[in-house]
């Protein structure tokens, strides 16, 4: 809110257009570059979604999504991930306030929620593999495991990243580089939520309906 007020106070005539203002500050450039990366990552998921859409009925006589998916477990997974996005947001506020204890607390909760999500996903995968529904069984299952597994790999990478960042906060404090990286991490974590919402809809909801 205070940003908008600040801009209104400035005489507009005195400012050049934003495009002519010269190189942007490092923080803006880094966050912007990371947004571009996230968009590219979403494009990669788009390709996996497309493959899933093409192959979802190619069950080759094997089990279908409706037979396999356990909505209850997926609902808990979703709740964990969405809640972790909220605590990640609280962590960002703590970082802005340069409050170490609150940062560790909310990062810890985020980590635990992410880990629970991963645990449930691994349990789901293991259960399917045990029930003769491994990715080698049919093209549908190949696409399912790849799409959902790719998201899971992203969550795992996020957990490692978060752990490394906490070590950086501990060793280096809230210096500019560390704060930029934490900003990128929270963008990443929220983006994983967005992908999960699509995934939940396209794979689990539509899959159960089919």
């Amino acid at each position, binding site marked *: 809110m205070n940003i908008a007020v600040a801009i209104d106070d400035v005489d507009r005539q005195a400012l050049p257009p934003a495009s002519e203002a010269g*190189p942007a500050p490092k923080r803006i*450039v880094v966050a912007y570059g990371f947004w571009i990366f996230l968009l590219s990552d979403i494009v990669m998921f788009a390709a996996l979604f497309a493959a899933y859409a093409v192959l979802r009925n190619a069950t080759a006589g094997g089990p279908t999504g409706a037979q396999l998916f356990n909505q209850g477990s997926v609902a808990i997974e979703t709740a964990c991930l969405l809640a972790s996005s909220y605590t990640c947001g609280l962590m960002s506020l703590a970082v802005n306030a340069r409050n170490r204890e609150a940062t560790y607390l909310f990062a810890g909760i985020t980590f635990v929620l992410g880990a629970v999500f991963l645990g449930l996903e691994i349990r789901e995968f293991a259960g399917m593999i045990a029930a003769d529904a491994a990715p080698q069984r049919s093209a549908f299952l190949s696409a399912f495991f790849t799409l959902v597994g790719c998201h899971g790999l992203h969550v795992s990478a996020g957990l490692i990243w978060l752990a490394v960042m906490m070590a950086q906060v501990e060793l280096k404090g809230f210096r500019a580089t560390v704060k930029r990286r934490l900003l990128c991490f929270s963008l990443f974590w929220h983006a994983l939520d967005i992908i999960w919402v699509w995934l939940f809809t396209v794979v689990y909801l539509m899959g159960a309906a089919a």
Partner: protein
Amino acid sequence: MNLLGKLTWSAIPFDQPIVMAATAMMVLTVVSVLAFVTWKGYWPYLWEEWLTSVDHKRIGVMYIVLALIMLLRGFSDAIMMRAQQAVAAGGAQGYLPPEHFDQVFSAHGTIMIFFMAMPFVIGLMNFVVPLQLGVRDMAFPTLNSVALWLTASGILLTNISLAIGEFAKTGWVAYPPLSELEFSPGVGVDYYLWALQISGVGTLMTGINFVATILKTRAPGMGYMRMPVFCWTALASNLLIVAAFPILTATFAMLLLDRYLGFHFFSTDAGGNAMMYVNLFWVWGHPEVYILILPAFGIFSEVIATFSGKPLFGYRSMVAATMVICVLSFLVWLHHFFTMGASANVNGFFGVMTMVIAVPTGVKVFNWLFTMYGGRVRFTVPVLWSIGFMVTFVIGGMTGVLMAVPPADFQLHNSLFLVAHFHNVIIGGVLFGVMAGYNYWFPKAFGFKLDERWGIASFWCWLVGFYIAFMPLYVLGLMGMTRRMQHYDNLAWQPWLLAAAVGVVIIMAGIACQIIQLVVSIRSRERLRAGGDPWNGRTLEWSTASPPPAWNFAVLPKVAEIDAYWSWKQRAQPAREPTQARDYKAIEAPKNTPTGFVTAFFAVVTGFALIWHIWWMAALGAIGAFATLLAFAFRDQEEIEIPAVQVARFDLAHQVEIAR
């Protein structure tokens, strides 16, 4: 368990004299270069100034060096193919057995697209874009270095395949089911996939870096409509990289899962769908064509405007055409396989879109012609390449529009007509473009021009050689000859293939002239010495010294219009931006780091291990790469300060030079 996975002594093809000779030559070259560097004691210099450099100019130069070496490698594959097809007529089998010939054409395509054209274009963008934007570096200098070295990793893996194991025998597109484990059980496809996955990560990093650089770091006053056209085309090209390369990564990941873990994305059984690969491949592949050609269009725009002594005709329409192509390039992919059997409506849509995309390209050609019209054109080497491009590319474009008609394409699909078409646009467009750029910006990079006479000789050899090598392929395509034939029975084809072989020899003479040009120029560099602005340039890169200092500009230029440098010169001000007494400040420059080089080393280790199923080594490589990343993340000093005195001393000397 075997500690070395699938790797045994039999992986080295001792029984194939041609492969062993090529391997011996490659090893000998590498060893002698390393020995030379050691003997001269250049290692510290190389390590500190180049291998660990995060300076966009040095990274650009290294990309181009890689591209030139890979041009030689890819071209020797071309000679082998042309020689084989010139002799293997009737009952003759030529000198290359099928399994070797198949590797040669696959390697040729892969190397020329991914490891020649891409690094050349990316190298030129790296060198030029920050200078044209009037800034000191890319948005992410270390990421830039990592990207370079990952590209080099892919190149290294591809070349290792020559000596150890084999390369893909599937063509450069590696369509399944042929590329599945069932039909390609060897390591060739794995070399292909891992080399391209690793270098593809590098390319994606480059794309992100350029988009952020161009959109977020420009000199004060440089609004979007004041950017040089080359920057616009670089922006379009890198937007395409960001939007297209992840699709390739995902597609290759699926094929890898099929091959390594028995998944069924593209397999012939259990519901796999091979045509999905073909679709996904070309959803990346067609934008890739424009990733390569758009920067070349930008180069021609700069060259034509500079050497006609006029502003570019229709700057706004040029920008619009570039961005329209950028969008439309995602709407034409299906024209690569009209024969798939989609409905007539689908084929019709993609046929029409393919014709539509020719329109903005036509706009560009007219803009270049009108720029030259009424100008005082200086026929330097870059201009020759540009004019050669305009003629050649228009022919290639027209054959492309011909194939955009689905019924015609059903006849021409996978024939040599197609091969002639895409060489016509890639050589006539991309290669001529990067050669124009190489001659145009060389003096900026090294402070002396390239020799004009050898440059002209090289151009004419390439141009004439190109026509003699590829026009016969159009004829052969119409005669019904398909691509990738190791031998053929129809003797009526042979004269045309002999002619094509002659053309390749002439192109070889062109390459020889280029090598001589470089050697001659280096030897007579004092005579060819060029100041900051050897061509009477228009854009900001010519306002700084040649070669530019590490910080590019002592004071960031202030831009008020298109062709900023030209307008300063027109106002008869001392060939610079308005010089008040300059207030020199110390400059923070990013610190050199071995992160890129070390990461790439581990990437090669991991890639090689995965290709040969040496799992412990793959794990070690991955851990090594992660540790490198951590070491980088935890470093304390990120920038070094260049003292104001040093900046001032250099800049004052440069001003004295301009005054002279």
